[in-house]
């Protein structure tokens, strides 16, 4: 039971990270109708930016950990958001009215560019950081000496995710930008006729998605203590699986799917085999798409001629 509770905590933390990435997929898919294949690499870039800015701030002589983390968060979000904007501007916007496979292929190309760019820029070796947030609580002391632990790091990951999601939900449901985004999702032409700047709205979607992914990247860096140039690929596919599982286009669905994938992966590693945890996650993607193509919270897609 204790083991189960511990795995539950670990799974929820991992799921929060996937959920943050999945939002970027689901938002872009909802508005533009394409799979932003490079989004996983944006997450990776976010991790790198967080690492580098953290090193810089520490070298500058800052010692207050909360202040450093806040600054790192802001820098990572800002710079990664600019990456998201640039990717959209260069690789997707010229293709908006191209044939249907073009944006997907362009996105694959962009994913290669980002992966190899960070390999060239920062080297292929894994970049470790020492644990920054330490300590935690022992929730329950088991009989066989197995303790259920909740570390401060895990609390931080989950609480940052919740705060960001609250902000994001507010943004989508209450602000002008959110209304524009929802309008573009329903009907781009009509939205444009009613004075919505469609190009700008789509750009902002990519910017917000990238900012959330960068937070996920930073959380990944802090939680696992390392980043490398190849981490975006697998994390990206899993987050996409999460988005599909939750119902692509649905924001609560993305988070729900993220949590589900995180839990499944953790429990699979805990009770079956660590080697096949990625196989489990990818199989879920296939199974969900076959039996439940609209996902948990998605709407069925109506095909119009």
């Amino acid at each position, binding site marked *: 039971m204790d083991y189960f509770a511990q795995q539950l905590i670990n799974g929820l933390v991992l799921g929060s990270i996937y959920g943050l990435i999945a939002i970027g997929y689901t938002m872009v898919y909802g508005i533009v109708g394409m799979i932003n294949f490079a989004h996983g690499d944006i997450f990776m870039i976010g991790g790198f930016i967080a690492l580098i*800015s953290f090193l810089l701030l520490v070298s500058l002589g800052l010692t207050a950990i909360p202040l450093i983390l806040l600054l790192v968060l802001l820098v990572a979000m800002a710079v990664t958001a600019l990456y998201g904007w640039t990717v959209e501007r260069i690789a997707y916007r010229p*293709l908006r009215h191209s044939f249907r496979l073009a944006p997907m*292929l362009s996105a694959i190309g962009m994913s290669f560019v980002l992966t190899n760019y960070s390999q060239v820029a920062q080297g292929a070796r894994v970049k470790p950081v020492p644990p920054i947030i330490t300590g935690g609580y022992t929730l329950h002391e088991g009989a066989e000496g197995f303790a259920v632990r909740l570390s401060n790091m895990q609390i931080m990951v989950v609480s940052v995710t919740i705060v960001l999601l609250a902000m994001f939900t507010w943004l989508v449901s209450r602000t002008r930008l959110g209304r524009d985004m929802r309008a573009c999702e329903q009907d781009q032409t009509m939205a444009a006729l009613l004075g919505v700047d469609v190009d700008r709205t789509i750009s902002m979607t990519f910017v917000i998605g990238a900012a959330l992914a960068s937070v996920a990247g930073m959380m990944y860096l802090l939680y696992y203590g390392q980043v490398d140039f190849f981490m975006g690929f697998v994390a990206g596919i899993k987050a996409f699986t999460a988005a599909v599982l939750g119902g692509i286009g649905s924001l609560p669905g993305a988070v729900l799917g993220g949590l589900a994938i995180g839990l499944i992966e953790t429990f699979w590693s805990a009770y079956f085999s660590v080697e096949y945890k990625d196989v489990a996650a990818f199989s879920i993607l296939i199974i969900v798409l076959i039996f439940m193509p609209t996902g948990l919270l998605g709407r069925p897609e109506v095909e119009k001629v």
Partner: protein
Amino acid sequence: MTALSTETTQASRTAAIPFILKKAFLSACVALVLFSLMIGIRTEAGPDGQLTWWTRLGDLASIVGLVFGGSIVVELLRQWIGPTGAEKLVPAPVQRSLSLAGRFLGPALLVFTLLVPVIFYNQRYILDLAILVLTYVMLGWGLNVVVGLAGLLDLGYVAFYAVGAYSYALLATNFGWSFWVCLPLAGMLAAIWGAMLGFPVLRLRGDYLAIVTLAFGEIIRLVILNWQDLTGGPNGVSGIPRPSFFGIPLDNSDDGLAAKLGIEYSPTHRIVFLFYLILALALLTNWVTIRLRRLPIGRAWEALREDEVACRALGINTTTTKLTAFATGAMFGGFAGAFFATRQGFISPESFTFQESALVLAIVVLGGMGSQLGVALAALTMIGGFELFRGLETYRMLVFGMAMVLIMIWRPRGIIGHRAPTVYLTKAQAISSDLVKEGHG
């Protein structure tokens, strides 16, 4: 009137210079922010696991300068060429002679390919490279059936390549079956896997299908990597038998082909044999594709690529149509895989990564989705280009990604050629709007 219009264009060009400069300046600013942390600072893990960093301001400055200059050039080019695109660049007579040349290019290339082992008999390196190029030509032609003809984006094509390679490797090392028995088996197994994957997932829309095939490719690779008892895991399978000339081994023994023909043995014989083997396999792929394209099934593939909803409305069973395309493509992938295994003599999961899928896909896309000659030329360009920049391993993938994006922007239907549907209406029919108004049409 003409003078006036030239004057106005002149005026707009001179007026555009501040605009261009402003745009370039903005691009440079964006580049500065983008690259400041990633390029300007280099991190590396020290010997004791501690991260160290140093600055590279010179690199940063030169990249930002490059972006500034590059965006001026791009903007100028855009103004001079105009927004009409590449179509106008090639005048009609040139285009006609190009298409005439294109008609002779295929046969000429084929004759040259047939003669490659004769011309370069003593140059092992060129022969090896030619075999590699032909392997990718075959893979490209196989994937072309799926992506180019049927319009299904398959990101996991390498899975079928792996299935073929491992089928041959395991059958040959465990049971000692000969290459010529295993080759059809490898193709069949790959086709069965293709059908097994395709049957449930082919109802999905294009993008979903792409991701599912990608996931499938990764699953196959991970299973091969982890199922140590069967596949040897990361160590791979070694000691895969070399192919024989229909039962006669190509070695330096008394039973060998050289001894039987009464000529002196040379290791090049095997290379030449492998060359003609892959050439025959590739030409088989090409021939089958060309023949299939004339059959109803091939027509249905092309129709499916152009418009799936219309296909369904016309009563084409889209699922079986897609399934046949998928299985056919997978079969050729399996053949190529078996060849790869016998050529290398050693296979490991490392040869079957997503990068390989993307490379084959890029060959098909660059070649112009459906054009057989285009795919062959694209394979030659890509693999040749990779070989030229062999020393710059990491940069070449960077350039490869950039090229993919640029091709999609510049000529999404392919640089080298593109294939229009085999059958199409020569004259577009104009239908009066009266006929299609609501409730009447």
